[in-house]
């Protein structure tokens, strides 16, 4: 009996194997590989093994010896022939600007020469080889495992002595952006709660025919394409858009002082709140539906005013729904990409937009991975805190 039960359980679990495999291949593996990129960058180390090996003996202050110049020149020429110089040059350039052009120019000019002194030839091609900082950049970009992407993502860097210091003020962007993302997420969550709670209450306390209609009104936008909804906000909010036209027509603003409501933080806030609202309403509704109408009646019969009954009887019982809805909205908004990208303009961008920039434009995947990892840690930390304070098992999502 016990054996057959265990067998049934194993068979039932086996049915989930396709899903487990699917998630493993399409989600966990890419995620792991991407996260690994934030600390693992083998390209330079693999491309310049000899140079890095002889650089080991360099004192880090004076100019390296002829052997180092020679090794680097040979390897650069090889890379140039293999047409794989660009990637190496880009990576070294991230540590010291100017290195990209120096490397490319050096490789091109050394192609035909076979000089007696590699050192002089290289310095002639690019004077930067005469400075120790060029070699330091080369050495550090050759580290196979590195924390510099994480440091960079946290607006830190290593100085010439290897100490962790803050980036120059004009280059500190990530921490403030992360703070802004968290702040925007909190604001959106609070607005969704304020807007969604009465709606959920109304739906949960309406007769079935009306509550179904109201629920449909919440769900239809939920089912509508994200892109459609975001672009319709553009139609509504833009300077020559419906709302501004209306305001001008009514006389609340003039033609010259149309209110900029999109391509800025306002646009991001408005559009994201509207898009994420159902994620707040539905968990709230799920919880409120389970609260019997007799609860409020009992409170009233016991002498409580509506306010007292709400604060002491109703509200506390909806806390699991508030928690679930807030967590959903917050986590979704912290990683939101498409809406701020379309309607955020310059000031309404969030951290995910910068991650996308590093993935697609600057091709600094290591930094993108580090930023993603930091975001992931933030969410995990919040979830952990939340579990400690509220308890995930007490939440009601549906």
């Amino acid at each position, binding site marked *: 009996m016990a054996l057959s039960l265990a067998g049934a359980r194993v068979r039932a679990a086996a049915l989930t194997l396709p899903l487990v495999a699917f998630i493993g291949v399409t989600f966990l593996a890419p995620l792991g590989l991407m996260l690994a990129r934030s600390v693992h960058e083998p390209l330079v180390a693999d491309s310049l093994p000899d140079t890095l090996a002889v650089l080991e003996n360099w004192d880090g202050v004076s100019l390296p010896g002829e052997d180092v110049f020679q090794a680097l020149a040979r390897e650069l020429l090889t890379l140039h022939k293999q047409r794989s110089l660009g990637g190496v040059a880009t990576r070294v350039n991230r540590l010291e600007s100017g290195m990209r052009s120096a490397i490319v120019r050096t490789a091109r000019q050394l192609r035909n020469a076979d000089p007696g002194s590699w050192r002089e030839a290289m310095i002639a091609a690019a004077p930067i080889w005469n400075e120790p900082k060029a070699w330091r950049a080369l050495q550090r970009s050759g580290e196979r495992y590195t924390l510099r992407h994480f440091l960079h993502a946290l607006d830190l860097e290593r100085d010439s002595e290897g100490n962790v210091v803050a980036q120059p003020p004009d280059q500190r962007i990530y921490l403030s952006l992360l703070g802004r993302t968290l702040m925007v997420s909190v604001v959106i969550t609070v607005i969704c709660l304020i807007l969604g709670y009465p709606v959920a209450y109304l739906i949960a306390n309406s007769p079935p025919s009306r509550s179904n209609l109201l629920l449909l009104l919440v769900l239809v936008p939920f089912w509508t394409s994200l892109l459609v909804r975001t672009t319709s906000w553009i139609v509504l909010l833009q300077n020559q858009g419906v709302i501004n036209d209306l305001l001008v027509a009514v006389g609340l603003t003039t033609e010259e002082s149309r209110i900029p409501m999109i391509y800025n933080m306002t646009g991001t806030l408005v559009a994201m709140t509207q898009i994420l609202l159902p994620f707040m309403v539905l968990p709230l509704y799920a919880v409120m539906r389970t609260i*019997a109408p*007799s*609860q409020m*009646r*009992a*409170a*009233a*019969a*016991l*002498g*409580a*005013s509506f306010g*007292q009954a709400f604060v*002491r*009887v109703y509200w*506390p*019982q909806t806390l699991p729904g508030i928690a679930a809805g807030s967590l959903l909205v917050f986590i979704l908004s912290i990683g939101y990409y498409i809406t701020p990208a379309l309607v955020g303009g310059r000031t309404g961008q969030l951290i995910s937009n910068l991650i996308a920039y590093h993935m697609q434009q600057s091709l600094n995947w290591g930094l993108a991975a580090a930023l993603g990892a930091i975001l992931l840690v933030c969410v995990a930390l919040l979830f952990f805190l939340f579990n400690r304070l509220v308890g995930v098992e007490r939440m009601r999502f549906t």
Partner: protein
Amino acid sequence: MGSSPHVEFHGVSKTYDGQTMVVQDLDLCVNEGEFFTLLGPSGSGKTTCLMMLAGFEAPSSGEIRLSGRSVQHLPPRKRGIGVVFQNYALFPHMTVGRNLAFPLEVRGISAARRRERIRQALEVVRLDGFEHRRPGELSGGQQQRVAIARALVFNPTLVLMDEPLGALDRRLREEMQFEIRRMQQDLGVTVVYVTHDQQEAMAMSSRVAVFHRGHIQQVAAPETLYEEPEREFVASFIGDNNMLRGQVLTVERDHCDVATPDGIVRAFPVHHCRPGDPSVLAIRPERVSLTRPGVYTNEFEAVVEDILFIGDHLRLRLNLCGNPNFVVKIQNVIGHSAVLAGDRVRVGWSVMDCRALPDEEGAGSGVLTRPAAPLRSPPGDATGVSGTDRADVPPSTQAV
């Protein structure tokens, strides 16, 4: 305890859709210290009455008075009535102590007095020491007691109970019936109690109002309701009754003769009636005897269709006077157990045990009685009155 009216309904009607009357032109008076039960099938309007009394529903017309004062404009929280809800409506996120403290806190009673009151209330329901438990950790019976304690803790003089024992199993229900009755008598509060269980109503109440389709059929003490039903619905709803339909032939001062398919039955006319009126006769199964000829005024011969051995008594089912489910309940004494299905027996009953009531359910239908409780009708046979009753109630009122 006194006898001045505590609760009064004057011509109260209630409709939700403007057409169907859930409660119609209701008059009712509950005296102080009474245990008053509103009894009726679901959808008969009894719960609506309770909700109007508590203030959760407003009467469409008519007036409700509490201790002589109209409560028309008084919200529920100002009525000072203790209410025990059907599913207790305990606050699940509060401990028992917090639940009981709630009505005291909203009344601004000091912490010290709150503690004392809560202790007393828990003592009354015999749950001392349960303050720190949560409702979810209690059994159904204990939750029930907490709900009662919470309704009593602020010392209301009137307590309403809406089917409070519906969710409990039979044994616990019977135990709680005694408990609630004891508490009511100890505290001297007025209780208005709603139930569809006639046994519960009979066991607990000082008076019972029988509801049917938004009307009160009869208000009386339990014994009176059983012995002297005045309406057909009451006769069929309270206890078992054999119902025989017929037409009044002659009316004398203390009896009338009613023609049934099997012959003339002499009965006691409850209301004034005239020859030619349709009438329904109610005869309790235990008042019918197996008899020799010449003992009773009403005597008939019939074949025993079915026999049911209950233990202390036997139930014989006969097809008699147009009623295929005519039940005779006989004591299990030596000799009677010799009756077998298929035997031809002679049964009789006295005039006073046969009450002639106005026929309100419509004459002519074949099946006339609510089947006697444990006796199952044969398959294919029509069900009893109470079943057809409910189908007549408009759907909108059934949920009430």
